């Protein structure tokens, strides 16, 4: 064990970094830094595609009554632009930064699960390819990025575009959730000694909040996608009002995901800004505790305000009032952060470089986006402005004016660490002004166009007074941004080749990633500095002014939960939301009067009850097996586990029996809403039991071969978390569907 501070010179490498490597090294890599870079490069690739789509739209809208694009093409472009920018640019680039920097900032060698990390990336990569493959079929998705039904139903979108959209998003969703579990586990379990959770850098804290949001919000989208897919492929009627379904339910489920998604995108931006501003103000952040705690409030409130996206639907006055108040409340923790960042700048020794330029622009532009967001919380304003360009202006001020500017800021700040070379400041400032001008030209005028009533998502517009001029300005602004992006890419390319050597800590920054070489070695650190405050590298380099001498922070108690179990709990939390929403759909559709001939009366409750006992018993035998494993009684363990598997299979056999009976009586998933919800809920549960049986079988084989012993019981315990969860879900399913509780 090495103690004491580390000499800076020991860690400094002034040699130009080696950048060339084999393609195979990259595609097969498990290194979090390389995977992080691959995420970022993928995002940049799709940014080019999404940006190109935006440029095409702006060319179309540059003049009134333009015919550059057909209406069909315009629909496909705005759908793919939105989907690409949210799922293939925004989320991957943030995951990329998190992948690269979270392990470094918490002093870990890698993420918690490197293979899962690679899996997550490749799921995203191929999901994105699949989504874009739809262009080759001649029918890219064209129902908007939130694919409202009935437009996205088979009746109105009969080609394959929406199917590609659903499958692509489901695959990417799996990758995203696995990535979030990985980041969560890394932050909770792999922090270096001394780094209490109260001391983590704010970027790390924000990524923790983002991971929680992803884990709990994305399943809402997945459940909605699953139901839409079943509607489209198997003829059910979840979202078909003509057969008793509910189009509004899609909106609820989409926005239960969609609103937290806004925070999934912007919270990491907050984290980046919270790193950049203090370093270039030469001060610790003002009000760390508030910034961190308020992000928890944002996470919690973020789940409860989705319906403000639906004010125009007609939810009723009281629902509108409550969701309006909730939406206004969430502005408080978000808005006060702006004061924290401003107060950090106040009185600081400002180094007004490119990174800080972008950070300051973020502050100003995000405030504008936030204020228009507050305007939308007022229901009458929402009714007036919904589906106009005012909405487009609002969310682009949040996502470009906020997030993209934060990303540029972070890139100028962290590029030296990732590449070992500095970016060119002159080119950076040029890019900054091109972007500030271009962005505000494009989107500021859209506020006015929206107020004038110009509807979004319409491929052209009449030559109304002022519209042509404002749209012309908007389109010209897009060109500025495109040129700015080319300057940025040139800057990166040129700096990689000839940039000034950065050294380990060119900014005299504060957090752990600056305590290693630039770029960091595969193992990240040789030694890590002593962590006694929130700014360990500052403490190391400025021992006379060390933070811990003046500001007390809660010490690390050394609590690090078991990785496998934490991941299992995070996974089942995500799965629980998925099942919860399916069950809610069941309750909604089966408490209505006047359903068809098939009701829950066709189910044999007694028989299923008996088979349920087999499943519940399997939890008991699992528990016994776990005890035997811990006690080192291998043969008893194998026997109990075998019995568990047998009980699980018996339950599945019972389900097959039940399904066979229903199908022979012509009760299929498309018969009516009862059958649709019944087969969907029990079918997904059956798939989970099957997956559990396979996992148990793997454990059994390992046990028989002697590879699963008492010292690995926590791995078995993690599988147990999943198995018990499957049983608990069945109890809920049995209570609600078979016993008819809540009906």
């Amino acid at each position, binding site marked *: *064990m*090495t*103690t*004491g*501070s*580390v000499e800076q010179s020991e860690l400094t490498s002034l040699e130009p970094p080696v950048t060339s490597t084999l393609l195979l090294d990259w595609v097969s890599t498990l290194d979090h830094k390389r995977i992080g870079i691959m995420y970022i490069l993928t995002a940049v690739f799709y940014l080019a595609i999404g940006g190109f789509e935006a440029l095409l739209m702006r060319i179309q809208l540059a003049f009134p009554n333009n015919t550059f694009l057909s209406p069909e093409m315009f629909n496909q472009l705005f759908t793919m632009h939105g989907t690409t920018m949210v799922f293939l640019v925004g989320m991957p680039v943030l995951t990329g930064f998190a992948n690269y920097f979270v392990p470094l900032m918490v*002093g*870990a*060698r890698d993420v918690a699960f490197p293979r899962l990390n690679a899996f997550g990336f490749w799921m995203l990569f191929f999901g994105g390819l699949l989504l874009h493959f739809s262009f080759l079929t001649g029918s890219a998705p064209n129902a908007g990025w939130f694919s409202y039904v009935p437009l996205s139903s088979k009746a109105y979108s009969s080609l394959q575009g929406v199917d590609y959209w659903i499958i692509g998003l489901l695959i990417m969703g799996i990758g995203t959730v696995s990535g979030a579990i990985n980041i969560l586990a890394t932050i909770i379990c*792999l922090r*270096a*000694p*001394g780094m209490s959770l*109260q001391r983590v850098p704010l970027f790390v804290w924000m990524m923790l909040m983002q991971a929680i949001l992803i884990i709990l919000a994305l399943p809402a989208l997945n459940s909605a996608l699953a139901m839409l897919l079943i509607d489209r492929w198997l003829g059910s009627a979840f979202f078909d009002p003509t057969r008793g379904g509910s189009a509004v339910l899609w909106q609820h489920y989409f926005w239960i995901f969609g609103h937290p998604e806004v925070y999934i995108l912007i919270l990491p931006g907050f984290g980046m800004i919270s790193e950049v501003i203090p370093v270039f103000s030469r001060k610790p952040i003002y009000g760390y*505790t508030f910034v*961190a*705690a308020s992000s*928890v*409030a944002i996470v*919690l*409130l973020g789940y*409860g305000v989705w319906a403000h996206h639906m004010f125009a639907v007609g939810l*009723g006055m*009281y*629902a509108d009032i*409550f969701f309006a*108040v*909730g939406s206004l*409340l969430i502005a408080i923790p978000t808005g006060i952060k702006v004061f924290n960042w401003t107060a950090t700048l106040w009185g600081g020794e400002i180094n007004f470089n490119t990174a800080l330029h972008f950070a300051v622009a973020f502050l100003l532009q995000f405030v504008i986006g936030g204020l228009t967001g507050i305007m939308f919380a007022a229901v009458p304003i929402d009714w007036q402005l919904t589906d106009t360009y005012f909405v487009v202006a609002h969310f682009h001020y949040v996502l470009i004016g906020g997030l993209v500017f934060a990303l540029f800021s972070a890139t100028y700040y962290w590029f030296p660490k990732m590449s070992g070379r500095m970016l060119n400041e002159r080119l950076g400032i040029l890019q900054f002004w091109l972007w500030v001008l271009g962005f505000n030209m494009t989107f500021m005028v859209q506020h006015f166009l929206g107020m004038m009533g110009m509807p979004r998502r319409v491929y052209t517009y009449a030559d109304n007074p002022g519209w042509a001029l404002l749209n012309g300005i908007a389109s010209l602004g897009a060109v500025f941004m495109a040129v700015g992006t080319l300057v940025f890419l040139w800057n990166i390319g040129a700096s990689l080749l000839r940039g000034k050597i950065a050294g380990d800590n060119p900014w005299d920054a504060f957090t752990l990633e600056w305590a290693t070489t630039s770029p960091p070695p595969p*193992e*990240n*650190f*040789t*030694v*890590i*500095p*002593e*962590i*006694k405050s929130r700014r360990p590298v500052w403490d190391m380099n400025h021992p006379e002014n060390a933070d*811990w001498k003046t500001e*007390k922070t*809660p*010490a*690390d*108690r*050394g609590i690090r939960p078991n990785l496998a179990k934490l991941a299992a709990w995070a996974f089942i939390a995500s799965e629980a939301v998925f099942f*919860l929403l399916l069950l*809610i759909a069941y*309750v*909604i559709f089966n*408490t*209505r*009067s006047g359903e068809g001939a098939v009701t829950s009366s066709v189910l044999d409750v007694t028989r299923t009850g008996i088979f349920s006992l087999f499943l519940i018993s399997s939890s008991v035998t699992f528990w016994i097996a776990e005890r035997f494993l811990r006690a080192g009684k291998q043969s008893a363990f194998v026997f109990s586990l075998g019995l568990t598997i047998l009980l699980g299979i018996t339950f599945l056999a019972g389900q097959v029996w039940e399904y066979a009976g229903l199908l022979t009586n012509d009760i299929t998933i498309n018969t009516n809403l009862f059958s649709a919800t019944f087969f969907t809920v029990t079918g997904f549960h059956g798939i989970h039991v099957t997956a559990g049986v396979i996992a148990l079988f793997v454990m059994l084989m390992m046990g028989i071969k002697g590879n699963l012993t008492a010292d690995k019981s926590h791995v078995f315990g993690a599988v147990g978390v999943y198995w018990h969860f499957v049983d608990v879900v069945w109890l809920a399913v049995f209570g609600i569907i078979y016993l008819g509780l*809540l*009906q």
Partner: protein
Amino acid sequence: MSSYFDLTSGLWKWSSPVWLLVLSLVGLYIIFHHRALGKRIVFFAFAMFALALAYVSPIGVLSDGYLFSAHVIQHLILLLIVPLFLLLSLSESETEALFRHPFMNRLGSVMAVPFVGWLSGLGVMWFWHVPSFCNASTENYALGVFRDATFLLAGLAFWWPIFSPLKRFHLSSSLAVIYLFSACLGCTLLGIYITFTVISVCPAFANPVDRLGIMHFLYDQGMTPATDQRLGGLLMWVPPCSLYVCAIMVVLKRWYAEMDQLTSPQTAGTTSSLREAQS
């Protein structure tokens, strides 16, 4: 019927027996907490004010068979507001004296088990909104009193692991956040169910007996049974979650102020190689 704020109207029930409970609690507080000062007295006064308001004001009168939404407000006051402020009104030293007794200490420990408090708080919420129980407790006075007592006791059990005056009964911060967040989820589900279901959750409120001749007044204000139930569901959902979020903020504030193990050399004062750290 002039207004809800006309204290002489039939919407105010000044003869409510709740005064007996208020007086008893005030007496007990004076006996056991006679040295209480400042904000604790304010908290206690607020708890008593809320308790009286739940029965004496139009909330109490309308919840007696007229409006489901008023019933939900009363329920939330009894379950969440009164117990919370009662706990906040207790001082640590005088409560400690009470909980030195082994039985009380055992009781405190049992109530500090998160499952007990969570299940009590959420359990009564769900249980008393099963249509038959909700109906019966609205129509039967004695059962109604029993229900209200369970609200108060369950509320004390629910808040105990978070706001007990004795820190040894507090949950760890991470568990407390999960405890409160999952409680929010629980009442959200119930709120969504009540808001959007087409069945009458508490049929007693669907066809009220108009004892006070105020039905026209209520209907004129748009409080039809369906609207009333939707409002009740939203009240069940949003205010408790807002309260839980505030409680989470308090928990986080405590967490960031945990200085008891401050910079002790054995926990924070060593630098180690990463390999050693993670092995």
